């Protein structure tokens, strides 16, 4: 009986650190950078949020829900170009592969902010909550900005 107990504790002692290590690896936070909301004309129904997501883990991280108080709904959409035609598709979730960086852009995956409750002006700050499938939630404040490049007047 006593010996069995010792073996149990020894095994536990061996296993625990490795379990903790594995746990640490999963807990590494996804890195979010270059996030901004596109400024759209007053009265425009929708706009889009762009983020660069870097997954430092070995396993996939899945973005499953986005929300913001500035709009009625936030959804992940994919824009595709096929034979000169642009089409948009609503996707339920977005997987970022282990070790990968995914840059959201106007001509790829992006987050649609649908039914804007007020006009977002250049420089405004938009609070956004990103929820991941593993239960992790990240809050960011994205700045509103126009996409236009620096204007160069030739006159």
């Amino acid at each position, binding site marked *: 009986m006593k010996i069995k107990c010792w073996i149990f504790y020894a095994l536990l002692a061996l296993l625990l650190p490795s379990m903790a290590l594995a746990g640490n690896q999963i807990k590494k936070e996804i890195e979010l950078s270059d996030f901004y909301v596109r400024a759209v*004309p007053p009265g*425009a129904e929708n706009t889009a949020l762009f983020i660069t997501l870097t997954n430092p883990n070995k396993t996939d991280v899945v973005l499953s829900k986005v929300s913001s108080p500035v709009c009625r709904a936030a959804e992940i959409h994919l824009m595709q170009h096929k034979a000169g035609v642009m089409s948009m598709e609503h996707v339920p979730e977005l997987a970022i592969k282990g070790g990968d960086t995914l840059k959201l852009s106007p001509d790829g995956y992006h987050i649609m902010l649908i039914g804007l409750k007020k006009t977002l002006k250049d420089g405004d700050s938009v609070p956004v909550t990103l929820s991941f499938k593993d239960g992790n939630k990240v809050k960011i404040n994205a700045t509103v900005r126009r*996409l236009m490049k620096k204007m160069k*007047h030739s006159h």
Partner: protein
Amino acid sequence: MTKSGQRRFYIYLALLCLLFISTAIGCKPKAKDEQKETGAELTTGPPKGGDFTLQAAEGPFSLHDMKGKVVLIFFGYTSCPTACPTSLETMAEAFSRLSVEELERVQGVFISFDPERDTVDELKEYAGYFHPNIIGMSGKIEEVKEVAGRYGAFFIKALQEESEMGYGFSHSTETYLVADNGTLSEIYSEKTDAMTLSEAIRRHLWKRQ
């Protein structure tokens, strides 16, 4: 009508019915996000362009009133957060590269193929936000479809029932340059930068001088 003629007529009628039914079945949406075709067809052959009259906030707008001006036309919808504002930003940036004198002879036109949601007043505000030289307009969907078809623009209403958007559009993203005599002269892809576009406008403005 002879008896055999009558029989032939009924056979044709039956075949026509069959064709109609099979087309209807073929078009039936399979998935929830399946596209519903209500847009302009892809035209074959080079687009003709030509005159049109659509509704702007200030009243009817006709292309022939723009004679003497270089006109840039883009087809889109205001709920589009990606391709449409990008193309209009590029058009605006191209305009901002022109001199005041040149700008007097340039007109940007934004034609909405979503008259269901885009009112003329909204279109005025939307287009004007990008540049004061861009005017927003629309019309009955059949009218917009007809104009789009002539210019080679394409759009399909895409139902997105699972999305709060309700519906969106799959569409082409070209910008059409109409010369000062009203003829469709050049077609620029979405990838065209503002500098290329402004140089194209200049080339047209100064070609006779």
